[in-house]
């Protein structure tokens, strides 16, 4: 078990290091931050001074290693825009993003899983078809289209809800629904196919042949098995709690991490972009770690037998 966790942690660290490196390379290759921040017609001396101030005149590998070294010491750098610590800039946006993504995750789970189970249990019924059509639509319609559609109907036409901003909880309703519906559709599809797969297994027939009432066959025998693949998808969704709302935050002008990312990329505000990417990588890696541990809990076949453990 210790060995399992150690190898997982090592892999997680490697993943994060790769994300950091990748972000560094892409950002440095995609334009000169000094020029962009100072503006196209800034005097060359000013741009040079900016470069020296931020260490941009050093060779690229020196920049990379000093950046990496700083991260290892917990220093994520400062924003080139206003000189504040990147980590502070980013963390103060996290509550706003979570205010969208956490309720959206609840919608995904509370709507998607029961819908998927119901559809599987009533396969080929009208309800199943309706659920599947909605699920496929939710799967294929991009979130900005769905978001704009909701704005058109509920903000512009009906005037029930605001179309953007963050002044009250009512401003959060449309973005949360936009995020939640799309994810619920994905989860419904996965849950349905996981359930169908399990319901076709011989052990389900064994349970019925034993005299277990159908309800108990579903809850006691089918669900615990169908939970195994479903947890992967939920884990993936937990991994996107921080970064999963970039598009929706932009559509609804919601001042979360996603919007900060868009602005920071446009400005080549390197430290901020890298800080966000690091945060995203850490969230995803943690979510994966949790999924792996849950797998072991849900599926005894993945648990090392006592004594047999390597």
């Amino acid at each position, binding site marked *: 078990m210790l060995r399992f966790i150690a190898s997982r942690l090592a892999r997680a660290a490697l993943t994060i290091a790769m994300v950091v490196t990748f972000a560094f390379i892409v950002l440095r290759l995609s334009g000169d931050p000094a020029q962009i921040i100072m503006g196209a017609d800034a005097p060359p001396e000013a741009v040079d001074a900016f470069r020296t101030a931020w260490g941009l005149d050093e060779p690229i590998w020196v920049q990379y290693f000093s950046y990496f070294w700083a991260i290892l010491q917990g220093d994520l750098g400062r924003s080139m825009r206003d000189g504040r610590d990147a980590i502070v800039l980013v963390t103060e946006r996290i509550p706003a993003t979570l205010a969208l993504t956490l309720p959206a995750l609840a919608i995904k789970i509370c709507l998607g899983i029961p819908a998927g189970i119901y559809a599987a249990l009533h396969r080929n019924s009208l309800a199943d078809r309706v659920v599947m059509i909605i699920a496929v639509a939710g799967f294929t319609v991009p979130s900005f289209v769905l978001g704009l559609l909701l704005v058109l109907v509920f903000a512009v036409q009906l005037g029930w809800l605001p179309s953007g901003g963050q002044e009250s909880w009512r401003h959060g309703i449309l973005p949360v629904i936009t995020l939640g519906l799309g994810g619920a559709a994905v989860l419904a599809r996965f849950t349905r196919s996981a359930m169908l797969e399990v319901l076709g*297994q*011989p*052990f389900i*027939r*064994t*349970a*019925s*042949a*034993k*005299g*277990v*009432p*159908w309800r108990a066959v579903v809850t*006691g*025998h089918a669900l*615990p*098995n169908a939970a*195994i693949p479903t947890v992967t998808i939920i884990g993936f969704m937990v991994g996107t709690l921080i970064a999963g709302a970039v598009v929706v935050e932009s559509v609804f002008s919601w001042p979360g991490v996603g919007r900060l990312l868009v602005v920071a990329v446009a400005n080549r505000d390197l430290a901020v972009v890298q800080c966000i990417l690091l945060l995203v990588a850490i969230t995803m890696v943690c979510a994966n770690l949790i999924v792996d541990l849950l797998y072991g809990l*849900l*599926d*005894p*076949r993945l648990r090392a*037998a006592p004594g047999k453990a390597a």
Partner: protein
Amino acid sequence: MPLVSLTGLSVAFDGAPALRGIDLSVAKGEAVGLVGESGCGKSVTWLAALGLLPNKARISGSVVLDGQELIGAPPAILEKVRGGRIAMIFQDPASSLNPVHRIGKQITEALALHRNMVGQAARSEAKRLLDLVGIPDASRRLDAYPHELSGGQNQRVMIAIALAGQPELLVADEPTTALDVTIQAQILELLKDLRRHMGMTLVLISHDLGVVADSCERVAVMYAGRIVEEAPISRLFSAAAHPYTQGLLGALPPMDGPRRRLAAIPGGVPEPWAMPPGCAFAPRCAHRVAACDAGVPGLIPLAASHRVACLQVAQVAMPRESVPA
């Protein structure tokens, strides 16, 4: 009075017939074999009787257990019958057990349903059942998961689960097909032992006439969704009357040789959606005459407890010399 009688039991999937009128009675305490090639409807017969087929299956006919009609019976009745009066075990023991539940839990679940046993009482009864079916170190095995046991041991666990409800009838559907030969013999021996000690009625389904011959007193031969011959085992071996049964016997290896699968009859089973109008065996039959295509032959008695569904039975069953000139 028979324990279970099936009358005119028919099943169709999406319009294709899988069973076409099964008539079969099982008396208390006897062991009946059900043989026939894969796909002839052996499993469907008993799954239909217990209401275990998917909803799309169209079922007609009657299955009566001790005066109680099972076809169309409400779920509450069927749930008492399943495992409590008729238990069933299946071909592939590894996938027939729930991979995420411990062995003990899968046994005590049946004990709770049919014998109201819970807690420590259920656990010690589960241990007794594992001992009974020959699982070594039973109390430790209660906490094992199916993937930690071998195929043969899993089939023993399936038998323990089946015994938990103290059923009157055990339907064993190809219980040894997925196991290797030495384990096969052990499981068949276990079934025989249990029957002797508990007076349990047994229906043994197999595609292997040899397996059935060792364990049963009576055998019903199925072909393309119908029973074509039914006789005591000894009679079947000495005086098989249906050309298909004769083909099966001809395909058996010599008594002391190794067992083979039955496959030596030329031709193939007709597809369910393209059944011949008359006798389903006609396309493969050497004794076929024009009348064979006119209608489906019914089972007719030939001798005490020997019935056969063949129009040409006089020509097929009798040795050539005894046919009057």
